[in-house]
Protein backbone atom coordinates (compact mmCIF):
# COMPACT_ATOMS: atom_id res chain seq x y z
CA UNK A 1 0.00 0.00 0.00
CA UNK A 2 1.00 3.61 -0.38
CA UNK A 3 3.50 5.00 2.13
CA UNK A 4 3.95 8.72 2.58
CA UNK A 5 7.20 10.29 1.57
CA UNK A 6 8.43 13.46 3.24
CA UNK A 7 6.22 15.61 1.02
CA UNK A 8 2.97 13.83 1.88
CA UNK A 9 3.91 13.84 5.54
CA UNK A 10 4.84 17.53 5.54
CA UNK A 11 1.42 18.47 4.16
CA UNK A 12 -0.49 16.44 6.71
CA UNK A 13 1.66 17.87 9.50
CA UNK A 14 1.09 21.40 8.20
CA UNK A 15 -2.63 20.77 8.16
CA UNK A 16 -2.53 19.61 11.80
CA UNK A 17 -0.68 22.80 12.75
CA UNK A 18 -3.16 24.90 10.81
CA UNK A 19 -6.12 23.28 12.50
CA UNK A 20 -4.53 23.55 15.94
CA UNK A 21 -4.18 27.26 15.31
CA UNK A 22 -7.76 27.58 14.07
CA UNK A 23 -9.13 25.74 17.12
CA UNK A 24 -7.11 27.93 19.44
CA UNK A 25 -8.49 31.04 17.76
CA UNK A 26 -12.01 29.73 18.11
CA UNK A 27 -11.63 28.76 21.75
CA UNK A 28 -10.19 32.21 22.45
CA UNK A 29 -13.23 33.75 20.73
CA UNK A 30 -11.03 35.40 18.11
CA UNK A 31 -13.30 33.98 15.42
CA UNK A 32 -17.01 33.28 15.44
CA UNK A 33 -18.66 29.92 14.98
CA UNK A 34 -19.87 31.02 11.54
CA UNK A 35 -16.29 31.65 10.51
CA UNK A 36 -14.97 28.55 12.19
CA UNK A 37 -17.57 26.01 11.05
CA UNK A 38 -16.34 25.65 7.45
CA UNK A 39 -12.80 25.27 8.73
CA UNK A 40 -13.65 22.41 11.03
CA UNK A 41 -15.79 20.83 8.32
CA UNK A 42 -12.78 20.84 6.00
CA UNK A 43 -11.22 18.64 8.68
CA UNK A 44 -14.19 16.34 8.95
CA UNK A 45 -15.48 17.58 12.30
CA UNK A 46 -19.27 17.85 12.52
CA UNK A 47 -21.44 18.86 15.44
CA UNK A 48 -23.97 16.04 15.74
CA UNK A 49 -26.74 15.23 18.18
CA UNK A 50 -24.60 14.23 21.14
CA UNK A 51 -21.17 15.68 20.55
CA UNK A 52 -18.76 16.39 17.74
CA UNK A 53 -18.37 13.63 15.20
CA UNK A 54 -15.07 13.17 13.41
CA UNK A 55 -14.83 11.45 10.07
CA UNK A 56 -11.33 10.11 9.43
CA UNK A 57 -10.35 9.39 5.85
CA UNK A 58 -9.48 5.86 4.89
CA UNK A 59 -8.17 6.45 1.37
CA UNK A 60 -9.79 3.96 -0.99
CA UNK A 61 -10.65 1.87 2.03
CA UNK A 62 -7.14 0.55 2.70
CA UNK A 63 -5.51 0.33 6.15
CA UNK A 64 -2.39 -1.22 7.63
CA UNK A 65 -2.37 -2.97 10.99
CA UNK A 66 -0.53 -0.03 12.50
CA UNK A 67 -3.16 2.37 11.24
CA UNK A 68 -6.04 0.26 12.50
CA UNK A 69 -4.34 -0.02 15.87
CA UNK A 70 -4.13 3.78 16.00
CA UNK A 71 -7.81 4.02 15.13
CA UNK A 72 -8.48 1.71 18.09
CA UNK A 73 -6.27 3.86 20.32
CA UNK A 74 -8.24 6.93 19.30
CA UNK A 75 -11.50 5.19 20.12
CA UNK A 76 -10.20 4.43 23.58
CA UNK A 77 -8.33 7.65 24.29
CA UNK A 78 -10.62 10.25 22.76
CA UNK A 79 -13.97 8.55 22.29
CA UNK A 80 -16.06 5.92 24.04
CA UNK A 81 -14.31 2.80 22.95
CA UNK A 82 -15.81 2.20 19.52
CA UNK A 83 -16.12 3.64 16.01
CA UNK A 84 -18.28 3.28 12.92
CA UNK A 85 -17.27 2.31 9.39
CA UNK A 86 -19.18 4.20 6.72
CA UNK A 87 -20.63 3.66 3.27
CA UNK A 88 -17.71 5.64 1.82
CA UNK A 89 -15.08 3.41 3.39
CA UNK A 90 -14.24 5.99 6.05
CA UNK A 91 -14.43 5.70 9.83
CA UNK A 92 -16.43 7.91 12.20
CA UNK A 93 -16.11 8.69 15.88
CA UNK A 94 -19.22 9.97 17.64
CA UNK A 95 -18.05 11.46 20.93
CA UNK A 96 -15.30 13.89 20.03
CA UNK A 97 -14.28 16.97 21.96
CA UNK A 98 -13.19 19.94 19.86
CA UNK A 99 -10.44 20.86 22.31
CA UNK A 100 -8.87 17.40 21.89
CA UNK A 101 -9.05 17.09 18.11
CA UNK A 102 -5.75 18.86 17.39
CA UNK A 103 -3.93 16.24 19.50
CA UNK A 104 -6.00 13.49 17.91
CA UNK A 105 -5.13 14.67 14.42
CA UNK A 106 -1.48 14.86 15.43
CA UNK A 107 -1.68 11.23 16.58
CA UNK A 108 -3.27 10.25 13.28
CA UNK A 109 -0.55 12.05 11.35
CA UNK A 110 2.08 9.81 12.95
CA UNK A 111 0.53 6.87 11.08
CA UNK A 112 -0.09 8.74 7.82
CA UNK A 113 -3.76 9.38 8.42
CA UNK A 114 -5.92 12.50 8.49
CA UNK A 115 -9.43 13.87 8.29
CA UNK A 116 -8.79 16.24 5.40
CA UNK A 117 -11.71 16.94 3.11
CA UNK A 118 -14.00 14.34 4.64
CA UNK A 119 -16.63 17.03 4.82
CA UNK A 120 -17.36 20.32 3.13
CA UNK A 121 -18.03 21.29 -0.47
CA UNK A 122 -14.85 19.82 -1.82
CA UNK A 123 -13.60 16.57 -3.29
CA UNK A 124 -14.06 13.83 -0.72
CA UNK A 125 -12.42 10.48 -0.10
CA UNK A 126 -11.72 8.57 -3.31
CA UNK A 127 -13.35 5.16 -2.91
CA UNK A 128 -12.48 1.90 -4.60
CA UNK A 129 -13.00 -1.84 -4.76
CA UNK A 130 -12.44 -3.64 -1.45
CA UNK A 131 -11.03 -6.63 -3.36
CA UNK A 132 -8.46 -4.51 -5.24
CA UNK A 133 -5.20 -6.30 -5.82
CA UNK A 134 -6.74 -9.68 -5.05
CA UNK A 135 -9.73 -10.22 -7.32
CA UNK A 136 -9.20 -12.39 -10.35
CA UNK A 137 -11.53 -10.28 -12.46
CA UNK A 138 -9.65 -6.97 -12.20
CA UNK A 139 -7.55 -5.60 -15.03
CA UNK A 140 -5.00 -4.17 -12.59
CA UNK A 141 -5.11 -2.75 -9.08
CA UNK A 142 -7.19 0.44 -9.32
CA UNK A 143 -5.79 1.93 -6.13
CA UNK A 144 -2.69 3.62 -7.58
CA UNK A 145 -5.06 5.71 -9.64
CA UNK A 146 -7.16 6.40 -6.56
CA UNK A 147 -3.99 7.48 -4.73
CA UNK A 148 -3.05 9.85 -7.54
CA UNK A 149 -6.56 11.30 -7.42
CA UNK A 150 -6.15 11.73 -3.67
CA UNK A 151 -3.03 13.80 -4.19
CA UNK A 152 -4.60 15.77 -7.04
CA UNK A 153 -7.68 16.59 -4.99
CA UNK A 154 -5.97 17.40 -1.67
CA UNK A 155 -5.87 21.16 -1.02
CA UNK A 156 -6.94 21.75 -4.60
CA UNK A 157 -7.02 25.56 -4.69
CA UNK A 158 -9.63 25.92 -7.44
CA UNK A 159 -12.06 23.29 -6.15
CA UNK A 160 -12.28 23.85 -2.40
CA UNK A 161 -15.52 25.81 -2.54
CA UNK A 162 -17.62 23.78 -4.95
CA UNK A 163 -21.41 24.08 -5.11
CA UNK A 164 -21.58 20.87 -3.10
CA UNK A 165 -19.57 17.81 -2.08
CA UNK A 166 -17.92 15.72 -4.77
CA UNK A 167 -17.40 11.98 -4.67
CA UNK A 168 -15.24 9.87 -6.96
CA UNK A 169 -14.96 6.06 -7.15
CA UNK A 170 -12.45 3.96 -9.10
CA UNK A 171 -12.65 0.30 -10.11
CA UNK A 172 -10.82 -1.98 -12.50
CA UNK A 173 -13.29 -4.76 -13.25
CA UNK A 174 -16.61 -5.17 -14.99
CA UNK A 175 -18.03 -6.31 -11.66
CA UNK A 176 -18.65 -3.10 -9.79
CA UNK A 177 -17.98 -3.43 -6.07
CA UNK A 178 -17.74 0.35 -5.52
CA UNK A 179 -20.99 1.63 -7.05
CA UNK A 180 -19.22 3.85 -9.59
CA UNK A 181 -22.45 4.66 -11.43
CA UNK A 182 -23.77 6.31 -8.27
CA UNK A 183 -20.86 8.69 -7.84
CA UNK A 184 -20.24 12.20 -9.12
CA UNK A 185 -17.38 10.75 -11.18
CA UNK A 186 -17.04 7.00 -11.66
CA UNK A 187 -13.95 5.56 -13.28
CA UNK A 188 -13.37 2.05 -14.57
CA UNK A 189 -9.88 1.08 -15.66
CA UNK A 190 -10.07 -0.51 -19.12
CA UNK A 191 -7.69 -1.40 -21.90
CA UNK A 192 -8.08 -0.37 -25.53
CA UNK A 193 -5.63 -1.37 -28.23
CA UNK A 194 -3.16 -2.29 -25.54
CA UNK A 195 -3.36 1.08 -23.80
CA UNK A 196 -4.67 1.54 -20.27
CA UNK A 197 -7.38 4.12 -19.77
CA UNK A 198 -10.67 4.84 -18.08
CA UNK A 199 -14.32 4.65 -18.91
CA UNK A 200 -15.83 7.73 -17.26
CA UNK A 201 -19.30 8.19 -15.78
CA UNK A 202 -20.48 11.54 -14.44
CA UNK A 203 -23.57 12.55 -12.57
CA UNK A 204 -24.54 9.55 -10.50
CA UNK A 205 -25.70 10.07 -6.99
CA UNK A 206 -28.33 9.48 -4.39
CA UNK A 207 -29.93 11.94 -1.99
CA UNK A 208 -33.13 13.77 -2.82
CA UNK A 209 -32.90 13.18 -6.59
CA UNK A 210 -31.11 9.88 -7.19
CA UNK A 211 -29.60 9.45 -10.62
CA UNK A 212 -27.46 6.94 -12.42
CA UNK A 213 -24.33 8.38 -13.99
CA UNK A 214 -23.95 9.01 -17.72
CA UNK A 215 -21.01 7.66 -19.64
CA UNK A 216 -19.26 10.85 -20.74
CA UNK A 217 -16.22 9.18 -22.19
CA UNK A 218 -15.75 5.57 -23.26
CA UNK A 219 -11.99 5.88 -23.05
CA UNK A 220 -9.59 8.47 -21.69
CA UNK A 221 -5.96 7.36 -21.68
CA UNK A 222 -4.67 6.77 -18.15
CA UNK A 223 -1.92 9.34 -18.71
CA UNK A 224 -4.60 12.03 -19.16
CA UNK A 225 -7.27 11.12 -16.65
CA UNK A 226 -6.25 13.78 -14.13
CA UNK A 227 -6.59 16.64 -16.61
CA UNK A 228 -9.89 15.17 -17.75
CA UNK A 229 -11.19 15.11 -14.17
CA UNK A 230 -9.93 18.67 -13.78
CA UNK A 231 -12.03 19.70 -16.79
CA UNK A 232 -15.12 18.06 -15.30
CA UNK A 233 -14.56 19.81 -11.98
CA UNK A 234 -14.02 23.18 -13.61
CA UNK A 235 -17.28 22.95 -15.56
CA UNK A 236 -19.01 21.97 -12.32
CA UNK A 237 -17.41 24.71 -10.25
CA UNK A 238 -18.33 27.35 -12.81
CA UNK A 239 -21.84 26.21 -13.70
CA UNK A 240 -23.15 23.94 -10.95
CA UNK A 241 -26.18 25.45 -9.29
CA UNK A 242 -25.62 27.49 -6.15
CA UNK A 243 -29.18 28.73 -5.66
CA UNK A 244 -30.63 25.61 -4.05
CA UNK A 245 -28.71 23.05 -2.02
CA UNK A 246 -30.93 20.24 -3.23
CA UNK A 247 -30.00 21.03 -6.83
CA UNK A 248 -26.32 21.66 -6.33
CA UNK A 249 -24.69 18.32 -7.17
CA UNK A 250 -23.13 17.73 -10.56
CA UNK A 251 -25.88 15.23 -11.42
CA UNK A 252 -28.33 18.13 -11.63
CA UNK A 253 -26.03 20.07 -13.94
CA UNK A 254 -25.66 17.06 -16.23
CA UNK A 255 -29.41 16.52 -16.16
CA UNK A 256 -30.26 20.16 -16.88
CA UNK A 257 -27.67 20.68 -19.62
CA UNK A 258 -28.25 17.27 -21.09
CA UNK A 259 -25.41 14.79 -21.30
CA UNK A 260 -24.42 15.85 -24.81
CA UNK A 261 -24.00 19.53 -23.95
CA UNK A 262 -22.26 18.68 -20.69
CA UNK A 263 -19.77 16.49 -22.56
CA UNK A 264 -19.21 19.24 -25.11
CA UNK A 265 -18.40 21.73 -22.35
CA UNK A 266 -16.03 19.30 -20.65
CA UNK A 267 -14.27 18.60 -23.95
CA UNK A 268 -13.91 22.31 -24.63
CA UNK A 269 -12.50 22.90 -21.15
CA UNK A 270 -10.19 19.92 -21.47
CA UNK A 271 -8.82 21.20 -24.75
CA UNK A 272 -7.63 24.31 -22.87
CA UNK A 273 -5.85 22.24 -20.28
CA UNK A 274 -3.15 20.76 -22.42
CA UNK A 275 -0.42 23.31 -21.61
CA UNK A 276 -1.12 23.30 -17.89
CA UNK A 277 0.98 20.29 -16.99
CA UNK A 278 -1.80 18.71 -14.97
CA UNK A 279 -1.09 15.13 -15.85
CA UNK A 280 1.44 13.22 -13.82
CA UNK A 281 4.78 12.28 -15.35
CA UNK A 282 5.22 8.61 -16.09
CA UNK A 283 7.76 8.38 -13.27
CA UNK A 284 5.06 9.33 -10.75
CA UNK A 285 2.67 6.66 -12.08
CA UNK A 286 5.48 4.14 -11.85
CA UNK A 287 6.40 5.20 -8.31
CA UNK A 288 2.85 4.82 -7.03
CA UNK A 289 2.07 1.61 -8.93
CA UNK A 290 5.19 0.05 -7.44
CA UNK A 291 3.81 0.67 -3.95
CA UNK A 292 0.81 -1.48 -4.76
CA UNK A 293 2.82 -4.42 -5.94
CA UNK A 294 1.43 -7.81 -5.07
CA UNK A 295 2.36 -9.06 -1.61
CA UNK A 296 5.16 -11.53 -1.23
CA UNK A 297 2.98 -14.59 -1.73
CA UNK A 298 3.82 -17.98 -0.33
CA UNK A 299 3.97 -19.76 -3.66
CA UNK A 300 3.85 -23.15 -1.95
CA UNK A 301 0.65 -22.39 -0.06
CA UNK A 302 -1.72 -25.34 -0.44
CA UNK A 303 -4.93 -24.66 -2.31
CA UNK A 304 -7.01 -27.15 -0.34
CA UNK A 305 -9.17 -26.35 2.65
CA UNK A 306 -10.26 -28.50 5.60
CA UNK A 307 -13.97 -27.87 5.92
CA UNK A 308 -14.67 -30.44 8.58
CA UNK A 309 -15.79 -27.85 11.14
CA UNK A 310 -19.36 -27.11 9.97
CA UNK A 311 -19.45 -23.58 11.39
CA UNK A 312 -16.18 -22.79 9.66
CA UNK A 313 -17.56 -24.23 6.43
CA UNK A 314 -20.62 -21.98 6.66
CA UNK A 315 -18.38 -18.97 7.03
CA UNK A 316 -16.14 -20.00 4.17
CA UNK A 317 -19.11 -20.51 1.87
CA UNK A 318 -20.59 -17.11 2.62
CA UNK A 319 -17.78 -14.75 3.54
CA UNK A 320 -14.76 -16.02 1.62
CA UNK A 321 -14.07 -15.19 -2.02
CA UNK A 322 -11.65 -16.65 -4.51
CA UNK A 323 -8.28 -14.94 -4.82
CA UNK A 324 -6.33 -14.67 -8.05
CA UNK A 325 -3.31 -16.30 -6.39
CA UNK A 326 -3.59 -20.08 -5.85
CA UNK A 327 -3.48 -20.98 -2.19
CA UNK A 328 -5.00 -17.67 -1.16
CA UNK A 329 -8.46 -16.34 -0.41
CA UNK A 330 -10.27 -13.07 0.34
CA UNK A 331 -12.06 -13.06 3.70
CA UNK A 332 -14.81 -10.64 4.69
CA UNK A 333 -15.07 -9.72 8.36
CA UNK A 334 -18.71 -9.13 9.17
CA UNK A 335 -19.55 -6.09 11.28
CA UNK A 336 -23.21 -7.14 11.13
CA UNK A 337 -23.82 -9.46 14.07
CA UNK A 338 -27.54 -10.12 14.33
CA UNK A 339 -28.96 -7.50 16.66
CA UNK A 340 -25.75 -5.47 16.61
CA UNK A 341 -25.13 -2.01 15.19
CA UNK A 342 -24.17 -2.28 11.50
CA UNK A 343 -20.64 -1.10 10.83
CA UNK A 344 -19.62 -0.52 14.45
CA UNK A 345 -16.46 -2.04 15.92
CA UNK A 346 -15.07 -1.80 19.44
CA UNK A 347 -11.48 -0.78 20.13
CA UNK A 348 -10.74 -4.35 21.24
CA UNK A 349 -12.12 -5.72 18.00
CA UNK A 350 -10.07 -3.27 15.97
CA UNK A 351 -6.91 -4.29 17.83
CA UNK A 352 -7.64 -7.93 17.19
CA UNK A 353 -8.24 -7.33 13.50
CA UNK A 354 -4.96 -5.39 13.31
CA UNK A 355 -3.09 -8.27 14.94
CA UNK A 356 -4.66 -10.80 12.59
CA UNK A 357 -3.89 -8.62 9.59
CA UNK A 358 -0.23 -8.44 10.47
CA UNK A 359 -0.04 -12.14 11.15
CA UNK A 360 -2.23 -13.59 8.42
CA UNK A 361 -3.23 -10.96 5.86
CA UNK A 362 -0.04 -9.29 4.67
CA UNK A 363 -0.79 -6.40 7.00
CA UNK A 364 -3.74 -5.05 5.07
CA UNK A 365 -7.35 -4.41 6.02
CA UNK A 366 -9.97 -3.08 3.65
CA UNK A 367 -13.15 -1.19 4.49
CA UNK A 368 -16.14 -1.93 2.27
CA UNK A 369 -18.92 0.52 1.39
CA UNK A 370 -21.28 -2.06 2.89
CA UNK A 371 -19.73 -1.34 6.29
CA UNK A 372 -17.77 -4.58 6.58
CA UNK A 373 -14.02 -5.16 6.63
CA UNK A 374 -11.91 -7.43 4.43
CA UNK A 375 -8.64 -9.31 4.61
CA UNK A 376 -7.69 -9.30 0.94
CA UNK A 377 -4.77 -11.74 1.10
CA UNK A 378 -5.13 -14.74 3.41
CA UNK A 379 -3.58 -18.12 2.82
CA UNK A 380 -6.24 -20.77 2.70
CA UNK A 381 -4.13 -22.68 5.19
CA UNK A 382 -4.59 -19.84 7.68
CA UNK A 383 -8.32 -19.32 7.21
CA UNK A 384 -9.26 -21.60 10.07
CA UNK A 385 -7.05 -19.77 12.55
CA UNK A 386 -8.37 -16.44 11.31
CA UNK A 387 -11.98 -17.59 11.58
CA UNK A 388 -11.48 -18.97 15.07
CA UNK A 389 -10.08 -15.67 16.31
CA UNK A 390 -12.76 -13.63 14.54
CA UNK A 391 -15.49 -15.91 15.82
CA UNK A 392 -14.39 -15.49 19.42
CA UNK A 393 -14.67 -11.73 18.97
CA UNK A 394 -18.10 -11.74 17.33
CA UNK A 395 -16.66 -10.85 13.94
CA UNK A 396 -17.45 -14.02 12.03
CA UNK A 397 -21.18 -13.81 11.35
CA UNK A 398 -21.48 -15.79 8.10
CA UNK A 399 -23.92 -13.38 6.47
CA UNK A 400 -22.18 -11.50 3.68
CA UNK A 401 -24.80 -10.24 1.19
CA UNK A 402 -27.56 -12.06 3.05
CA UNK A 403 -30.68 -10.54 4.55
CA UNK A 404 -28.97 -9.75 7.86
CA UNK A 405 -26.03 -8.01 6.16
CA UNK A 406 -27.82 -4.69 6.29
CA UNK A 407 -26.39 -1.26 5.52
CA UNK A 408 -27.71 1.37 7.92
CA UNK A 409 -26.67 4.97 8.40
CA UNK A 410 -26.30 6.18 12.00
CA UNK A 411 -29.74 7.78 11.75
CA UNK A 412 -31.56 9.71 14.42
CA UNK A 413 -29.67 7.92 17.19
CA UNK A 414 -26.62 9.98 16.23
CA UNK A 415 -27.16 12.30 13.31
CA UNK A 416 -28.50 15.85 13.47
CA UNK A 417 -29.84 15.59 9.92
CA UNK A 418 -31.94 12.48 10.47
CA UNK A 419 -35.72 12.26 10.53
CA UNK A 420 -35.90 8.77 11.97
CA UNK A 421 -33.79 6.10 13.56
CA UNK A 422 -32.33 3.51 11.22
CA UNK A 423 -30.26 1.26 13.47
CA UNK A 424 -33.22 -0.20 15.43
CA UNK A 425 -34.92 -1.03 12.14
CA UNK A 426 -31.82 -2.90 11.00
CA UNK A 427 -31.62 -4.72 14.30
CA UNK A 428 -35.26 -5.79 14.23
CA UNK A 429 -35.08 -7.00 10.65
CA UNK A 430 -31.92 -8.95 11.38
CA UNK A 431 -33.49 -10.50 14.47
CA UNK A 432 -36.59 -11.44 12.50
CA UNK A 433 -34.45 -13.32 9.98
CA UNK A 434 -31.78 -14.58 12.34
CA UNK A 435 -32.24 -18.24 11.46
CA UNK A 436 -29.34 -19.11 9.17
CA UNK A 437 -31.23 -21.73 7.19
CA UNK A 438 -33.84 -19.13 6.44
CA UNK A 439 -31.14 -16.67 5.39
CA UNK A 440 -29.62 -19.22 3.02
CA UNK A 441 -33.00 -20.01 1.56
CA UNK A 442 -33.58 -16.34 0.80
CA UNK A 443 -30.12 -15.95 -0.69
CA UNK A 444 -28.53 -12.70 -1.82
CA UNK A 445 -30.56 -9.68 -0.79
CA UNK A 446 -29.22 -6.23 0.05
CA UNK A 447 -31.25 -4.18 2.48
CA UNK A 448 -30.15 -0.56 2.87
CA UNK A 449 -31.59 1.88 5.37
CA UNK A 450 -31.26 5.67 5.48
CA UNK A 451 -32.58 7.88 8.27
CA UNK A 452 -33.18 10.82 5.96
CA UNK A 453 -33.24 11.88 2.35
CA UNK A 454 -29.50 12.49 2.31
CA UNK A 455 -29.31 8.75 1.71
CA UNK A 456 -26.06 7.99 3.50
CA UNK A 457 -27.46 4.46 3.91
CA UNK A 458 -27.72 4.23 0.09
CA UNK A 459 -31.35 3.15 0.26
CA UNK A 460 -31.89 4.09 -3.42
CA UNK A 461 -29.43 1.33 -4.27
CA UNK A 462 -30.97 -1.31 -2.02
CA UNK A 463 -32.66 -4.41 -3.33
CA UNK A 464 -34.91 -3.39 -0.49
CA UNK A 465 -34.45 0.22 0.48
CA UNK A 466 -35.90 1.84 3.56
CA UNK A 467 -36.11 5.59 4.09
CA UNK A 468 -36.88 7.13 7.46
CA UNK A 469 -39.17 10.15 7.31
CA UNK A 470 -40.86 12.47 9.75
CA UNK A 471 -44.63 12.09 9.61
CA UNK A 472 -46.18 14.77 11.81
CA UNK A 473 -43.51 14.41 14.44
CA UNK A 474 -43.49 10.62 14.37
CA UNK A 475 -40.88 8.36 12.82
CA UNK A 476 -42.20 6.67 9.69
CA UNK A 477 -40.63 4.55 6.97
CA UNK A 478 -40.97 4.24 3.21
CA UNK A 479 -40.20 0.98 1.48
CA UNK A 480 -38.60 0.82 -1.97
CA UNK A 481 -37.65 -2.18 -4.07
CA UNK A 482 -35.31 -3.00 -6.91
CA UNK A 483 -32.25 -0.80 -6.47
CA UNK A 484 -28.70 -1.87 -7.22
CA UNK A 485 -25.30 -0.24 -6.81
CA UNK A 486 -23.49 -2.84 -8.86
CA UNK A 487 -22.70 -2.77 -12.58
CA UNK A 488 -26.42 -3.39 -13.21
CA UNK A 489 -27.18 -0.08 -11.46
CA UNK A 490 -30.82 0.76 -10.87
CA UNK A 491 -32.77 2.98 -8.52
CA UNK A 492 -35.23 1.46 -6.06
CA UNK A 493 -38.88 2.33 -6.56
CA UNK A 494 -41.24 3.24 -3.74
CA UNK A 495 -43.72 0.45 -3.18
CA UNK A 496 -46.57 2.38 -1.60
CA UNK A 497 -47.64 4.23 1.53
CA UNK A 498 -45.26 4.26 4.48
CA UNK A 499 -45.17 2.40 7.78
CA UNK A 500 -44.36 2.64 11.43
CA UNK A 501 -41.16 0.97 12.61
CA UNK A 502 -42.96 -2.26 13.47
CA UNK A 503 -44.94 -2.00 10.25
CA UNK A 504 -41.88 -1.72 8.02
CA UNK A 505 -40.26 -4.78 9.58
CA UNK A 506 -43.46 -6.74 8.90
CA UNK A 507 -43.61 -5.33 5.39
CA UNK A 508 -40.06 -6.46 4.67
CA UNK A 509 -40.99 -9.94 5.81
CA UNK A 510 -44.07 -9.94 3.57
CA UNK A 511 -41.97 -8.79 0.62
CA UNK A 512 -39.47 -11.56 1.19
CA UNK A 513 -42.16 -14.22 1.62
CA UNK A 514 -43.80 -12.98 -1.57
CA UNK A 515 -40.46 -13.32 -3.34
CA UNK A 516 -40.16 -16.89 -2.16
CA UNK A 517 -43.64 -17.63 -3.44
CA UNK A 518 -43.07 -16.26 -6.94
CA UNK A 519 -39.41 -16.83 -7.67
CA UNK A 520 -38.65 -19.06 -10.61
CA UNK A 521 -36.57 -21.28 -8.37
CA UNK A 522 -34.52 -21.09 -5.19
CA UNK A 523 -31.53 -19.75 -7.10
CA UNK A 524 -33.28 -16.72 -8.57
CA UNK A 525 -32.16 -13.71 -6.55
CA UNK A 526 -34.74 -11.37 -5.05
CA UNK A 527 -33.53 -8.56 -7.31
CA UNK A 528 -33.97 -10.69 -10.41
CA UNK A 529 -37.44 -11.81 -9.37
CA UNK A 530 -38.39 -8.17 -8.84
CA UNK A 531 -37.00 -7.19 -12.23
CA UNK A 532 -38.81 -10.05 -13.89
CA UNK A 533 -42.23 -9.47 -12.28
CA UNK A 534 -42.28 -5.82 -11.23
CA UNK A 535 -43.76 -4.66 -7.95
CA UNK A 536 -47.28 -6.15 -8.38
CA UNK A 537 -46.81 -9.32 -6.33
CA UNK A 538 -45.03 -7.36 -3.60
CA UNK A 539 -47.65 -4.62 -3.48
CA UNK A 540 -50.30 -7.27 -3.17
CA UNK A 541 -48.46 -9.02 -0.38
CA UNK A 542 -47.83 -5.86 1.61
CA UNK A 543 -50.95 -3.80 0.98
CA UNK A 544 -53.43 -6.50 0.08
CA UNK A 545 -54.53 -7.58 -3.39
CA UNK A 546 -56.07 -4.87 -5.56
CA UNK A 547 -59.77 -5.60 -6.11
Amino acid at each position, binding site marked *: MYRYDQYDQALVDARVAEFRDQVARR*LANEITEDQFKPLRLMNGLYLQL*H*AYMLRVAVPYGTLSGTQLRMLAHIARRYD*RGYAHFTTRQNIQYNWMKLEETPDLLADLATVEMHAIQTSGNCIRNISSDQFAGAAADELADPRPYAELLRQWSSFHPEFSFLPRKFKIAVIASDTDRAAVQLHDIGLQLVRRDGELGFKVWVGGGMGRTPMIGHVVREFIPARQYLSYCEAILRVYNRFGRRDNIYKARIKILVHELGAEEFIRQVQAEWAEMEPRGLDAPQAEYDRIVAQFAAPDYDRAAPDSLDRSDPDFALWVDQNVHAHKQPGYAIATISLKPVGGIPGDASAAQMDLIADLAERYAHDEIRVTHSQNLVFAHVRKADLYAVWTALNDAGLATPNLDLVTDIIACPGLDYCAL*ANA*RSIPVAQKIAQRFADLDRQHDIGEIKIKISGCINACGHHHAGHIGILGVDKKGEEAYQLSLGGSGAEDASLAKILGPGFSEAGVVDAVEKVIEAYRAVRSGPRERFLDTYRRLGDAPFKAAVYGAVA
Partner: protein
Amino acid sequence: MRLLTGNILETGDVVWWTGHDWSLHLRDAVDVDADGDALLARTLAEERINDPALVAAEPTADGPRPRTMRERVRGAGPTVRLDLNRNPA
Protein backbone atom coordinates in the same frame (compact mmCIF):
# COMPACT_ATOMS: atom_id res chain seq x y z
CA MET B 1 -42.77 24.47 28.37
CA ARG B 2 -39.73 25.70 26.44
CA LEU B 3 -36.24 24.53 27.19
CA LEU B 4 -33.01 26.17 26.09
CA THR B 5 -30.38 23.74 24.87
CA GLY B 6 -27.12 23.72 22.98
CA ASN B 7 -23.72 22.06 22.76
CA ILE B 8 -20.67 23.18 24.70
CA LEU B 9 -18.12 24.60 22.27
CA GLU B 10 -15.08 22.89 23.79
CA THR B 11 -16.52 19.43 24.25
CA GLY B 12 -19.65 19.23 22.15
CA ASP B 13 -21.62 18.01 25.17
CA VAL B 14 -25.35 18.56 25.07
CA VAL B 15 -26.41 20.99 27.80
CA TRP B 16 -29.66 22.41 29.12
CA TRP B 17 -30.26 25.78 30.76
CA THR B 18 -31.13 25.40 34.42
CA GLY B 19 -32.03 29.03 35.10
CA HIS B 20 -28.57 29.99 36.29
CA ASP B 21 -26.15 27.76 34.41
CA TRP B 22 -25.87 24.85 32.01
CA SER B 23 -26.38 21.21 32.98
CA LEU B 24 -25.53 18.00 31.19
CA HIS B 25 -28.79 16.52 32.47
CA LEU B 26 -32.16 17.04 30.85
CA ARG B 27 -33.91 16.66 34.19
CA ASP B 28 -32.30 19.93 35.37
CA ALA B 29 -33.72 21.95 32.49
CA VAL B 30 -36.19 24.69 33.35
CA ASP B 31 -38.98 26.32 31.41
CA VAL B 32 -37.39 29.48 29.99
CA ASP B 33 -40.84 30.68 29.02
CA ALA B 34 -41.02 34.33 28.01
CA ASP B 35 -37.31 34.88 28.68
CA GLY B 36 -36.41 32.27 26.09
CA ASP B 37 -35.86 34.50 23.10
CA ALA B 38 -33.66 36.90 25.00
CA LEU B 39 -31.67 34.05 26.53
CA LEU B 40 -31.24 32.48 23.12
CA ALA B 41 -29.98 35.73 21.64
CA ARG B 42 -27.53 36.22 24.50
CA THR B 43 -26.25 32.65 24.19
CA LEU B 44 -25.69 33.10 20.48
CA ALA B 45 -23.82 36.32 20.98
CA GLU B 46 -21.49 34.82 23.58
CA GLU B 47 -20.30 32.22 21.04
CA ARG B 48 -19.53 29.63 23.74
CA ILE B 49 -22.55 27.35 23.27
CA ASN B 50 -23.04 26.04 19.75
CA ASP B 51 -26.36 25.65 17.96
CA PRO B 52 -28.45 27.02 20.83
CA ALA B 53 -32.13 26.34 20.37
CA LEU B 54 -35.48 26.53 22.11
CA VAL B 55 -37.12 23.16 22.43
CA ALA B 56 -40.74 22.36 23.22
CA ALA B 57 -41.26 19.92 26.08
CA GLU B 58 -43.87 18.55 28.47
CA PRO B 59 -43.28 18.46 32.20
CA THR B 60 -43.42 14.95 33.68
CA ALA B 61 -42.71 13.42 37.06
CA ASP B 62 -39.25 12.40 35.81
CA GLY B 63 -38.41 15.81 34.42
CA PRO B 64 -39.07 17.55 31.10
CA ARG B 65 -39.87 15.33 28.14
CA PRO B 66 -39.05 16.99 24.79
CA ARG B 67 -41.79 16.74 22.22
CA THR B 68 -39.62 15.54 19.36
CA MET B 69 -37.79 12.22 19.13
CA ARG B 70 -34.74 14.15 18.07
CA GLU B 71 -34.55 16.13 21.28
CA ARG B 72 -35.33 13.10 23.41
CA VAL B 73 -32.39 11.33 21.78
CA ARG B 74 -30.22 14.40 22.42
CA GLY B 75 -31.31 14.35 26.02
CA ALA B 76 -30.74 10.69 26.69
CA GLY B 77 -28.17 9.42 24.22
CA PRO B 78 -28.48 6.89 21.40
CA THR B 79 -31.41 4.54 21.95
CA VAL B 80 -29.23 1.69 20.69
CA ARG B 81 -26.47 2.28 23.24
CA LEU B 82 -28.26 2.63 26.56
CA ASP B 83 -24.91 2.14 28.27
CA LEU B 84 -24.05 5.63 27.01
CA ASN B 85 -27.23 7.12 28.41
CA ARG B 86 -26.58 10.38 30.22
CA ASN B 87 -29.81 10.28 32.10
CA PRO B 88 -30.11 6.82 33.57
CA ALA B 89 -33.35 6.34 35.44
